[in-house]
Structure formats: C-alpha cells, structure tokens
C-alpha cells in the first residue's frame, strides 16, 4: 500500500519537470488526476490483495474513464461512462494532439488534444511505475519509466532543466526507493554505522530507523552531488545540464513616440505566454509569405535600429501604385501575387502594415504612406488593428545567373547599407571573411553566409539568450553560438556588410500556419530576417535562423538562397521555365521536413570550430594543466596547513608577549601534535583510539626502527602533547620543527616507496579533513531529520 502511494508521488514529482513544455498549468492538474486514479486503484488492489495481473488492466480502464470524464464528458453517459461517441471523440482528440506535437514548438498552448495526450501518457507511466514498484517489487526498475518521463523536456527543449525540478523529481524517486527499502528490510538487517561515534557505543539491536537514516543520507548526498558537481566541474559547454537562474530579460525600453523598438517587441512577442492570432491572410497562389513590418538599416555596434520613415503626401497608398522597388531591374522575371490580409483586433497600436515584400499596390482604408527607400507602409494616425486590406506584390524570381550577373551597387545604396561602426570587433570581420570565398560573386557569398549559420557553424536556437550589449554580437558569433532569430538576422546582416553586400534587417512575421484555405499568423511567428541587396533584383530575404521544433517554427528558406548542385540547377531552370510559362508563382517551400534545417554537426563537410584561436592541442593542454593543478591541490593544501602550524609554533616561541599569554605554548603544542598526527596518517600509520601520546611514541620507536634521535624527537613531541592535555601547565615545547622533521624522515625511511609518494602528492590527511567536513554535513542532515515534523511520528509508526 505504501509502495503504491510512493509510486504515485514519484510519478507526480517527475511529471512536474514537464512544466517547460506547456503554457499554463492546466495540463498538470489533469495529469495529476490520472496519477491519483492510478494510485487509488493501486492502493485498493494492495489493500484487498487483488491478483497481480488484474491491476494494470483495472488501472488502464480507470484512466480511460477519467479521461472520458475530463475531456469528453458531454458525450459520455452520466458524464463518466464511455459511449461510442465519447470513444470516437477521445480518439479524435488524441489524434489532434499527435498532429499538434510536431507542429508546435514548446511551450505549447494547452489545447485539449495535447492535454489529453499528456494526461494519457502520464497515466501510462504511473501505471508502469505502479506495476514495477508495487506489484513486482522492482522499485529500482521503476526508475526507467520515470527517467523516460523526465527526459521528455530534456529532449524537446534545448534550454537547461531547472534544478529545482530535478530535485523534486529525484526526491520523488528516492521516496519510492525508501518505501521499497522499508518494506524489504524492515524485519531484518544490522545497523550500518556510518561513522565512528565519539564515545564508545555498545552493539545495538537491528534498528530499521538507523538503516533508513543511512539510506536517506546516501540519497541526499547523491542528489546534492548530482547538482553541485556539474556546476563545479570546468566545462567547455555553454549550456550545463541545469540552468542556474533563468536569464531574466532586461530589455531596453527607449521607445520613441512613433517608432517602437522592434527588437524589444519582437522578443516580447516570441516569449509571450499566450500564442494569440495576429492576423490571417490568403494568397491567390495558396502559398505563405513572410510579412514584413519594419526595416532596420542602422547598426550601431550594439543593435539594429531604424531610420525614421519618410512619408510624403504623394506616396499615399490611396494615390495609386507604390514607388518601384529599389534596385529591381526590368530583366528580372516577377510574379504578381495578391494577398488579402486581416489583422486581428488585439494587436494594439500597430502603426505599420505587415506586407509581403515588395508591395506594389495596396488597397487599404485610411491615411497610409510609403517610405520610398524601404517600402515600409505606415500611418501617423491610423492603426492596423482590425484592418483588412489587399496588397499586390511583384515578387522577383531571380535565377542564379541573374544574381551572378548583378552589377555594381549604386553609391546611394552602399552609403546607407554598408555602413558599419568602427568598433566592430576584428573577430567578427575575420570570421565573415573566413566563411566566405573572396573570389565568389556577392550572391554566392550570401549563400555561404547563410550556410554558415544553418549548417557549418553549429548554431542552436534558444530564446533565453539576451543580447543587446556590446558583447552580444561576439558572444553569439564566437562564443556560444546560440540565439534566436534576432541574433541570427542581425549577425548575418552585419557579416554581409563586412563582405560588401548591402544588408538590412527586416522584422515581421513568418508565413504562419495553415488555417482552412488561408494562413494564420500568431504571436510566436514573429520573426527577424536579413535582407540583402543585389543590383538588378533588389532586396532579397535570406533565412539564417533554424526552422522547425528546435527553431523558429514556421521559418522557410527561399529557393534562391540554397546552395545548389548542378542537377538542382538544371531542375531549377526547368522549374523556372515552367513557372514563366504558366505564370504561377513558385512559392517558398513551407517547412515540411523541419529536421533537415536543424543544425546538424554530422552533416556537411565538417563544422567550423569555435573561432577563439584555441586549437585542440592548446585546449587539451589547458585541460591537462587544470587536471594537474587539481591533482596537486591536496598536496598544496597539506603544505599550507603545515606552514600555518609552523607559524603558530614560531609565534609561541617568540619572547612571551602579553598577548600570547598562557595560551601560546598550548596552542603551539596542539598544532605540533596535530601535525604529527597528520604525518602519521599520511604515512599510513594507524592510531588505535585508545593509544595515548606516550604509548604512540614508544610504538613508533619500536615498530618503525627509529634511531635514538628520532625516537627522542617523537617522545619529546608526545610528552609536550601529554602535558598540554593533562598537566596543570604545558611544558616547554623545545624545538618542534626539527623534531617533526626527524620523525617524518624516520617514518619515510621505514615506509615503502609507494607510501612515500602518496604522502607527498596525495596526502591522505587532506582527504580526512574533507571527510570530517562531510560528516559535519551529514550531522546537519540528521538535525534536519529531527526538525521535520513527520520525522518522529513516522519513526514511531
């Protein structure tokens, strides 16, 4: 019965660690319900000795009924008894959940499909744990399903698991083991003395309480070690297993009146707990489009910002077609696409229209004006909230040839879009030049840059990175290579400028997810991407951010930015021809297979390793040096202790000042005695607890063949210690240092070489002190145990 309860508690504790996967806590309560149902059946089964094989089916049924009641209550008979309709409904829910899981990135919204799936999964784990721990009494094995549950968040999200969650999960499992151990050894066994007690204690009869205490001590120590050790160990990884404190956002405000800080609001939208719909749209070719809102053209060394847009009265959208897209020549084939966009009501004071680039003609109500250079469409009076508008855009469909033929960029563009701050770190410049081919065309270099971010550089996608300070760019590019779209877009734009391609950062939304005939864009689809300029084609978007579950969920890569083989080239040309002939847009390919764009270190021609300038041998050397230092630490500690004790001696030996007082010689003797004790321990001379100083000196002289001088030295130290401990007045210490040295030499001479080396390099006395410290920590645990209100009551039970 106790085991059933412990199984339930353990499963619940481990289930808590799923929290980063979900928005809100509703999933936990339904999962808890499933666990409670399972545990309840388990307890009853134990109570009434139900046959073993009957329990899991009973629990499965109970979980089923529970899920029916929670998720499909209205279809069920009397809200709990499953009917045909409820079964179908539940099946549909689960199927929807399965569909949602690959589609949505964590944290997922708490829709009923996913909740049902989670509840069922946790219920299954609870049944398994109960089966293993309570039915077949294999509590240790029950750790496996628990571990499976625990690794779900670790496998799905790249962020570290919070250590409190780990502690809770580990304690849950420990509780299960303790309960099992209690059942198992409650009636037999001997006391395990964890350490020597200070006074003599006679043999006790077997006491499961003491046993339990030992178990708890071992378990708690293991948990503490598991948490502390990874933090203490030197690591080259930037992401330890556990995150110590979440990277609290400290976004800079500084919004001007009319221009929001797009970067800050982007991050805010990406990390918003709710994932609400921002807009829906339809395109006449049925394919999704990136919807740009802002264009950031100034990089100040810290972040990208926007030059205020300039909306002249003649550039009103109502005054006809928009100005032509900058740089777009007449020889580039274009595809006109009509997009009908409906912005949701809850988007707030949005003064810019989300539009596919480049917009050609906009049919929208209100006073909206176009910035000629960037083609951003904005309004000083109206907002886009609740607005529905139609835009016709002439998408350029460049080929490798047209892009390769791109002519020189006019100075108007280079002046504005190649400007970099003087403070840009050398490392960034070097990196950009290294990953691109000096002789390649701008287009090829752009592809190489994107390839660096998506494949070769080994970048990972994480939302916890916070970066607006001076170091952010170098941190992202050189050090940790983890970030979200903002960093990817900003870094690629900077590097493009370095290699001579005019670049800017666009902020807006990805194409979103499908909704009926159209597309739905939600807050989590907020995105940033770089736009690069090619004379003759104009501005083209690139996509350095990883897509899919481990990246920006709905990001897609434009076809012209893919590195291509000769075959692909041919296909592309063929496709281009048909496209031209049929006059239908060739849409960006949606992220069907998301994994293929995930940073994959084993894929491609080897990753470019970190650019720190530390080669592998140097790193290995540093590692070896650290290991050597760590290995020498005990010896160093030992020498330090010895030096401290000698200092105490020499202080006491000085002409007795008033400060030294009567305590001086006593303290010095204690130091000398402790030093002798450590010397003996280092040389493997054990000291029986009942041996007096005098007896020790005598034994040393006899057993280790001390010469007269060394024996006298040992006797002198022993006498001094004896007087310090037992006489009215401590005697004269004499010259402790030479005495100690004599004893040490005599001991070393009598010891085998191995012992001598160990005494010098890994003195056991240092470890003894560490052990004493550990014992004190355990004492602390004991005290805690005493403080716990249930502690004594449980012991009495």
């Amino acid at each position: 019965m106790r085991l059933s309860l412990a199984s339930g508690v353990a499963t619940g504790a481990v289930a808590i660690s799923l929290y980063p996967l979900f928005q809100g806590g509703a999933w936990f309560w339904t999962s808890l319900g499933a666990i409670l149902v399972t545990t309840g059946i388990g307890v009853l089964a134990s109570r009434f000795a139900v046959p073993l094989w009957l329990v899991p089916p009973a629990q499965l049924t109970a979980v089923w009924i529970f899920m029916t009641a929670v998720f499909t209550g209205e279809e069920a008979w009397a809200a709990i008894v499953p009917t045909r309709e409820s079964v179908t409904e539940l099946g549909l829910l689960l199927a929807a959940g399965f569909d949602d899981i690959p589609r949505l990135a964590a944290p997922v919204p708490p829709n009923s499909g996913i909740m049902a799936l989670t509840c069922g999964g946790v219920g299954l784990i609870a049944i398994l744990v109960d089966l293993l721990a309570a039915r077949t009494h294999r509590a240790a094995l029950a750790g496996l399903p628990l571990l499976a549950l625990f690794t779900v968040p670790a496998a799905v999200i790249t962020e570290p698991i919070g250590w409190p969650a780990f502690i809770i999960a580990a304690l849950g499992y420990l509780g299960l083991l303790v309960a099992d151990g209690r059942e198992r050894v409650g009636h037999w066994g001997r006391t395990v003395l964890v350490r020597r007690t200070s006074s003599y204690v006679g043999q006790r009869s077997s006491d499961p309480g003491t046993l339990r205490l030992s178990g708890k001590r071992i378990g708690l120590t293991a948990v503490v070690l598991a948490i502390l050790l990874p933090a203490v160990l030197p690591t080259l990884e930037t992401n330890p297993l556990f995150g110590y404190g979440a990277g609290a956002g400290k976004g800079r405000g500084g919004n001007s009146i009319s221009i929001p800080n797009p970067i800050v609001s982007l991050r805010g939208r990406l990390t918003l707990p709710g994932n609400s719909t921002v807009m829906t749209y339809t395109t006449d070719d049925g394919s999704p489009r990136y919807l740009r809102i802002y264009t950031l053209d100034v990089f100040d060394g810290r972040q990208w910002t926007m030059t205020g847009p300039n909306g002249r009265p003649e550039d009103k959208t109502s005054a006809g077609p928009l100005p032509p897209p900058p740089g777009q020549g007449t020889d580039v084939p274009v595809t006109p696409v009509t997009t009908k966009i409906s912005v949701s009501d809850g988007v707030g004071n949005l003064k810019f229209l989300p539009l596919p680039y480049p917009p050609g003609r906009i049919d929208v109500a209100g006073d909206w004006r176009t910035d000629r250079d960037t083609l951003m469409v904005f309004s000083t009076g109206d907002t886009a909230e609740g607005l529905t508008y139609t835009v016709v855009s002439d998408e350029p469909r460049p080929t490798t040839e047209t892009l390769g033929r791109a002519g020189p960029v006019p100075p108007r563009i280079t002046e504005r879009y190649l400007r970099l701050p003087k403070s840009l770190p050398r490392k960034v410049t070097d990196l950009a030049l290294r990953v691109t081919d000096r002789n390649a065309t701008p287009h090829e270099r752009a592809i190489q840059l994107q390839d660096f971010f998506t494949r070769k550089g080994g970048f990972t996608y994480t939302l916890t990175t916070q970066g607006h300070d001076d170091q952010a760019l170098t941190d992202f590019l050189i050090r940790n290579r983890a970030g979200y779209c903002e960093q990817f877009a900003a870094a690629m734009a900077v590097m493009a400028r370095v290699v001579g391609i005019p670049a800017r950062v666009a902020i807006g939304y990805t194409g979103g997810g499908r909704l009926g005939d159209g597309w739905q864009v939600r807050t989590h689809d907020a995105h940033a991407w770089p736009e690069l300029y090619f004379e003759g084609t104009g501005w083209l978007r690139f996509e350095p951010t990883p897509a899919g579950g481990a990246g920006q969920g709905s990001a897609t890569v434009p076809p012209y930015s893919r590195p291509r083989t000769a075959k692909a080239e041919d296909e592309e040309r063929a496709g281009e021809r048909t496209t031209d002939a049929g006059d239908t847009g060739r849409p960006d390919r949606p992220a069907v297979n998301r994994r293929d764009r995930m940073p994959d270190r084993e894929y491609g021609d080897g990753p470019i390793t970190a650019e720190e300038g530390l080669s592998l041998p140097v790193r290995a050397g540093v590692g070896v040096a650290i290991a050597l230092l760590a290995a020498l630490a005990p010896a160093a500690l030992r020498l330090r202790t010895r030096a401290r004790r000698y200092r105490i001696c020499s202080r006491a030996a000085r002409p007795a000042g008033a400060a030294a007082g009567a305590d001086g010689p006593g303290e010095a003797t204690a130091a000398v005695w402790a030093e002798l004790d450590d010397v003996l321990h280092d040389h493997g001379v054990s000291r029986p607890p009942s041996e007096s100083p005098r007896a020790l000196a005598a034994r040393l002289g006899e057993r280790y063949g001390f010469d007269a001088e060394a024996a006298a030295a040992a006797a002198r130290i022993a006498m001094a210690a004896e007087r310090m401990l037992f006489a009215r007045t401590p005697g004269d210490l004499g010259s402790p240092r030479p005495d100690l040295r004599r004893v040490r030499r005599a001991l070393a001479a009598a010891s085998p070489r191995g012992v001598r080396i160990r005494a010098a390099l890994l003195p056991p006395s240092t470890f003894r002190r560490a052990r004493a410290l550990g014992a004190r920590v355990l004492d602390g645990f004991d005290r805690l145990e005493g403080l716990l209100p249930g502690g004594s009551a449980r012991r009495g039970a």
Partner: protein
Amino acid sequence: MALTHDVSPRLDDLVVTARRINQAIESVIEGKGDAVRLTLTVLLAEGHLLIEDVPGVGKTMLAKALARSIDCPVRRIQFTPDLLPSDITGVSAYNQQTREFEFKPGPVFASIVVGDEINRASPKTQSALLECMEERQVTVDGTTYLLDGPFMVIATQNPVEMEGTYPLPEAQRDRFTARIAMGYPAPSAELEMLDVHGAASPLDKLEPVATTAEVRALIGAVRAVYVSQPIKRYAVDLVTATRHSPELRLGASPRATLHLVRAARAHAALAGRDYVIPDDLQELCVPVLAHRLLPSAEAQGQRRSPEHVMADLVRRVPVPEARPR
C-alpha cells in the same frame, strides 16, 4: 626516561621513599615487581588490597614484607569459620579492679591489617572487617573508635580450595581498591629463592625503611596530584563502557570510578609525575575494575573472564585527544 618535569620536592621524596620500600619488599619476594608496585600504589591511594591466588605463592609474605618495611603497627588475622566479629574489632571487658567496662582493641587497630584467607570466615565476621575498611572506624557497644591513618587491609583469598568458604559477595569486593594475583615466580626467581630462603626467612632480616609519618606525608603528596578534566572524563568513559558492555552482567560502580582515579594519582606519583595521564588509568583498569565485574552468561560460555573483557574495553575506549587544528 625524561619523565620528571617540575616535580615538587615532596614528590621527589615520595619517589625516593617509595623506591626504598619497593627494594625492601623485593628483597623478600623475588621477581614480583608488578605486584609490589601495585601494592604500594594501593597503599598510597588509601585503599585496600585483595590478593587472590593459589596457596604458597607468597601472598602472606607480600603482605608481611610491606608491613615490616614500614615502621608501623601491623596485625595479622587468620580467618577461620569460627572467628567472631569481636575477634576483629575488639571487645569491652569488665575490669574488676576499676569496676568498669574497658575496651580491648582488636587486631583491626593497626596501620596494616593482614587478613589471611578472608573467605573462610562467616559473612558476619567479614562484614565487620569490611565496615572498618570503608568507614575507617570501629563501633563497639555504641562507642565509635577512629582508626588512625594510614590504614590498609591486605586480604588474601584462596580460589582453589572452595569447600567450607564464604566467597566475598560483589558488594564487599567493591570495597577493595584493587585485586591482584601473585602468579608463580619465574624459574630463575624460584631458583634464587631457594638459595636465599634456604637457611632462614629473609623476613626476619627485614628492617623498616619508612615511618608512619613518612607514609602519611606520601599520601598527602599523592592527594595533590593533578587530574585534568579530560582524564576525569576518560575515567568515566571507561567505567561507563563496563556498564554498557553486553559481555558483562554487572558493570563497575561509581565507587569504582573514585578508586580508579585515586589509584591513578598514586600511580602517577610513583612515576614521579604530578599529573595523571591515560596510561595510568589504562594500566590500573584491570586490577582496579575487573574484580567488581560480573560476566554475562554469554561471556561465561565463551570462557571470557572479566579481566579479558576489561582489557578489550580499554583498547576500545578512545583516549582524550586534542582536536586537530
């Protein structure tokens, strides 16, 4: 060994005098240095000694030699089943001349009383002696007579011939500070004994080497020996260990703790030290504590005597130690 630091003049005298007495006794008893030393320790600790051994190993001789070498009143009582308490304490007899009752002191009114074969007397008589030992006074017919110090009872007991004896109960054994066994002498010592004792008893030639006053002064010096707090705790630890040992049915009493520390003082003084060290206690634990302990049935089954158990406990109780710093 360089044992003598800061020894007060009185302690020096003590060492010299004690050595004199020691030599005197050893001239009579060959090769029993430990027993002699322990006897002196008990004398200086103001305790009483129980010598338990087979007949003929020199129990009485030791007692007599000690008595002889100190110039003090010595009385010897041979315990027999028909011995009466008044034979020990003395009687009030009616003096016809003065027409008054007059107290005739018994043999207990001496500095050293040798009680031979104490287990042969009836319990009533034994208890009369034991009362004198503990209280150091004699009460006859309502009058209390104090016994002058030094006062030491050396009782001998014969463990082999047990027929018609009244073994001392635990409560009464507890009154003796220490129990020793003489043991057979080494063959060389026995050979020498044949040479020396062949013609005449060496006891006759023994001259007193110390006076009562001197012994009293020695006892005073012993009382001044310093016992530090850790040593007291160690003594308590040792005694406590006997009470918790599963091999013992009866552990040592608080009186035993007292006796142990007193004997340790004397032991330290005899070594010329003015402070007690754990070694003193360790050496005295078996003679001072073992005779008060009763082995459990388990220990008896394993033929473990209290002496063995005590020696084991001494090995297990940790000595007081300075904390490493």
